């Protein structure tokens, strides 16, 4: 059985929140916002295996304040990420903080992947080109909707020390394409 992710939050963050969360059912869906470029790279070069950082709610700002999910901060809240990334694309801001962090992450993962034999040297070159020459369109945000139950213990709670706030956050390191839906929000 999946260990309650709230336990981590309760112990590390605030006992008062923990009491309120005792016995809370995990949500049936997980939500994750990712740039199109990440989706494309994982589909093309990583065998369609997706690494996602996700949340139990789409928008923590509209949750009841006594739920742990309401403590997910904007930097990890799928709805906020959707807005932030969408705004960066609309502003044509290629120097956006999120975009720079994503670029560094994709390149360093590609280096590790090539060293470990997960991807080829040619793929490392291709990824480098696509990341450093990404178009604004490549950064458009996609929302992943992930049914949680079939994933079982593959859903791992992010340690509180690595969470951006007090709310629960999760990762799935080996999500397969049939296991989630992708929604591309209409562009303004």
């Amino acid at each position, binding site marked *: 059985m999946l260990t309650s992710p709230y336990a981590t939050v309760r112990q590390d963050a605030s006992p008062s929140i923990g009491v309120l969360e005792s016995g809370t059912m995990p949500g049936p869906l997980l939500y994750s916002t990712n740039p199109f470029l990440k989706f494309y790279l994982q589909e093309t070069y990583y065998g369609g295996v997706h690494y996602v950082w996700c949340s139990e709610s789409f928008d923590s700002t509209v949750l009841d304040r006594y739920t742990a999910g309401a403590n997910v901060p904007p930097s990890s809240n799928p709805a906020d990420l959707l807005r932030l990334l969408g705004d960066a694309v609309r502003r044509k801001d290629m120097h956006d*903080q999120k975009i720079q962090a994503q670029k560094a992450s994709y*390149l360093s993962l590609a280096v590790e992947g090539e060293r470990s034999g997960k991807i080829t040297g040619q793929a490392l070159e291709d990824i480098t080109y*696509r990341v450093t020459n990404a178009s604004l369109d490549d950064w458009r945000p996609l929302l992943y909707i992930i049914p949680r139950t079939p994933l079982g213990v593959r859903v791992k709670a992010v340690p509180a020390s690595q969470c951006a706030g007090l709310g629960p956050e999760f990762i799935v390191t080996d999500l397969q394409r049939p296991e989630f839906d992708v929604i591309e929000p209409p562009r303004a």
Partner: protein
Amino acid sequence: MSLSLHVLKTLADYSDAERADLLAKASSFFLPKPDLQTEPEAPSPVLVDLMGELASRAKVDPTDTSPPARAAILQVLVSELSQLLLAQSRVATVRARLGDRGELPPKQYRVAFDPSFDTATKRGIRRAHVEDALQSPDSVQHLPEGENPIEPRVSLYARRIADGKNASDPYVFLVHCRRAGDLQHVVTAWRVYLSDIRLKDDRNKPLDVLAAFLDVYGIEFTVRGFDTPRRLIASERFVVVPGEPDSELFRFESKGIAFEANQTVQRTSDAVEVALAYAVNVTRYLDDLRKHGVEISDAYWKSNTVRLGIAQSRVTPQKSEGTTG
């Protein structure tokens, strides 16, 4: 993006591979680590020096952990790392490789016009319209798709035009290109009025639009040696008798009807690989275009290919593609 002209001093004594590894490791100290179950290890002395130098290059205080400072440092790091991972001398090769697979963003393809495109200009298609569609398509489909091994490559771009005078009579601007590396050769383009065709559903790809267009305006043809008449062939290989001439590979059931035929094909020793082949009954199509207010140049009917109703395949053997307009 800032470009460094000098190797980072901290990394001067390392190989390129070691520099890339160290920069990748350094990036982890600026990024969240969701799968880290224990406290992160302290950075090694060389990483401390490297992060300090990256901060210096970014002109930020190394102790500044604010998001803008982090973003500035990461920008320098990405620039340094990308130069190590992809030498300038390799860029054209990589770009061509990605382009050939249809994996470049639309704006990164170069554009050239095949001679066959002249026929489209006489139907009122302008180069500027094509360039706009190629830069900002609503949808693009690169063929062949998946594991299909055929050699010739085509791309179909679709852009819905529904503004201004077309608001009440929208059409899809469909552009047929043959693709070679990062170069798109424009073969032809079509205005496909949505009121004239029947699309199967709301999730149409450009090839679906072309198929629906040919349901109305296509004429049937056969590949030599194959009896089944077709209106559209996309990404298929036909085995043929080795040594047979390339002429009349396709037989069109035109019965005196004027048509435009477009084929992007490649001949191998024993087969014809068809990236895209179709023919359009232009008498019917142009009649309908006039109903939509499109003016057709008189020069159109003087075009040899159309007047004679003959499509001559220019098929080149092995590793190159031919088209006819």
